[in-house]
């Protein structure tokens, strides 16, 4: 693991030496802040209506749930900016020669890079905990639901980052990597609504539910509602591991070209 830590350290340095990490962190927190403020506003108005016997059902917990479902979606836009450079940049700078001729195992390389981008994303999500603090100070949210939401976020992020890394390994251009990562993540989200409208069946395969299952949206939503299902955990972990394995294969295949 010595190689993986060396890679991890170097990648984190690179992130924080360029403005990328700061800009993305800032923009992400700003957008989340706007959304949070808007939601609080809506919540208050509904509360006023409720007091006079109007609409029901908007609670602080629902607020947190909506907030995090939005965050999971917004992170789809953030991920490509952090993962695009992982491999594409190494190829452009001809630094793969250094990594491949050093006594470094390929899986250490893949793992180190994944961990670097992942830990940065995790850091962003952890910083977003300030919204929860506001809710705790001025409200009374249900903390176990928030905990399970964070678990879901961490798992979803792992699968975003691994997919972004895989796409970055397949091209030498950061821009192309970013665009494709974004398209891939968006399509994965859309699979949910796409699958719900399909009732076609081929043999045993029901296409609708299959597409819904393949989308991370539903899996994440159950976390954000406080449900921790084994199948959701297995989904995210296997998604991540398969992407990492494919990344390993693509990186390895670079030698044969």
């Amino acid at each position, binding site marked *: 693991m010595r190689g993986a830590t*060396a*890679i991890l350290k170097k990648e984190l*340095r690179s992130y924080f030496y360029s403005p990328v990490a700061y800009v993305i962190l800032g923009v992400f927190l700003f957008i989340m802040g706007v959304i949070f403020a808007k939601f609080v506003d809506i919540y208050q108005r509904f509360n006023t209506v409720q007091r006079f016997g109007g609409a029901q059902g908007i609670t602080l917990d629902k607020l947190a749930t909506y907030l995090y479902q939005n965050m999971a979606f917004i992170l789809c836009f953030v991920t490509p900016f952090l993962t695009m450079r992982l491999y594409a940049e190494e190829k452009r700078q*001809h630094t793969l*020669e250094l*990594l491949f001729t*050093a*006594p470094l195992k390929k899986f250490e390389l893949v793992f180190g890079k994944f961990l670097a981008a992942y830990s940065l994303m995790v850091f962003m999500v952890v910083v977003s905990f300030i919204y929860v603090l506001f809710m705790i100070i001025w409200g009374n949210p249900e903390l176990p639901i928030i905990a399970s939401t964070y678990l879901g976020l961490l798992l979803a992020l792992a699968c975003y980052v691994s997919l972004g890394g895989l796409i970055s390994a397949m091209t030498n251009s950061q821009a192309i990597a970013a665009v494709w990562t974004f398209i891939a993540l968006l399509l994965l989200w859309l699979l949910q609504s796409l699958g719900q409208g399909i009732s076609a069946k081929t043999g045993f395969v029901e296409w609708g539910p299959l597409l819904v299952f393949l989308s991370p949206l539903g899996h994440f939503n159950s976390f954000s509602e406080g449900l921790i299902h084994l199948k959701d955990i297995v989904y995210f972990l296997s998604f991540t591991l398969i992407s990492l394995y494919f990344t390993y294969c693509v990186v390895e295949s670079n030698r044969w070209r």
Partner: protein
Amino acid sequence: MLKLPSVLVTKDIPAFVKLTRSPSNNKISKRLNAFVGENTMIEVKSLTKKYGDRTAINQLTFSVARGEILGFLGQNGAGKTTTMKILTGFMPASSGSASIGGFDILENPFEVKKRIGYLPETPPIYPELLVYEYLSFVADLRGVPKSEKSKKIDKVVELCHLGDVRRRLIGNLSKGYRQRVGLAQALIHDPEVLILDEPTVGLDPKQVNEARGLIKNLRGEKTVIYSTHILSEVAATCDRIIVIDRGNIVAQEALNPMGAAGGLVKTEIIVRKVGDDLRKKITSVSGVKEVHITSNGTHRLIVESDANEEVIAEVSRVVVESRSGLIRMSPIQQALEEYYLTLITGKGGPQT
């Protein structure tokens, strides 16, 4: 089972081999064979690489002795870089085998990589890091122990004259400094073998000299393969050259100190006056083949002789004793260049 004097076994096997492998292991015996056998560091056997239909290198066979500096000479696209990339384990060969320090590059790439320092054509640097951070990263990557790391970084910084730029961003360095950072990177883990792909490209003349001096200083200590398409460079630094053209080795020669590969050298002598018997006297020195004299104010003598210091010394004695007013006497380095051109152009086929 291998039978060897016990002294050898205990002395020469690196500690990690002793710890992890039993002596009957095949890989060890290979390593030991390399120790016991000749003093060969790099052994390449009918190495071939094809990119689709195009053959980049064709059946290369050569070996490099421990401590030797080998010049790898050829035009652009002759296959120098491909050979180096295969030796360093960056890419696999289509067929053939190669071993470094007794370890096969395919069977035991890890052991091979530990022993190699590699400077590719484009120095593999990260522009966003500071010089010392970059070197520290490479040291980690190469598995340099924490306790020795700062010492080793200091050493290569000094060796490559990077003291002034230690704390500067690599992206802001000039080409020459980047090249030196690349060289420092290749040296950081104190490898037995150095593989340098055109290390002096982009350096100014003073830096080229420094780089050459640096490489010369490694003679005997490290085995170096050094590729270039500049002839004078080879003449200045290498013990031996391999000329490679369109994927084939066209010549393998030891370089003598005179700087010629063909056996004959030309010496230019300029004198004030030429006496009647000067030509005869010089020709009578054994080893001198031919003397041309052209006169134009001063007199210019071109002496063609064996590439032997004794012969040249004798010629100079004769010239001085003839009291002809010696102004200048210098070897003509052209020999190597001419020789090289005949090697490449003599083959026929496309010319540059």
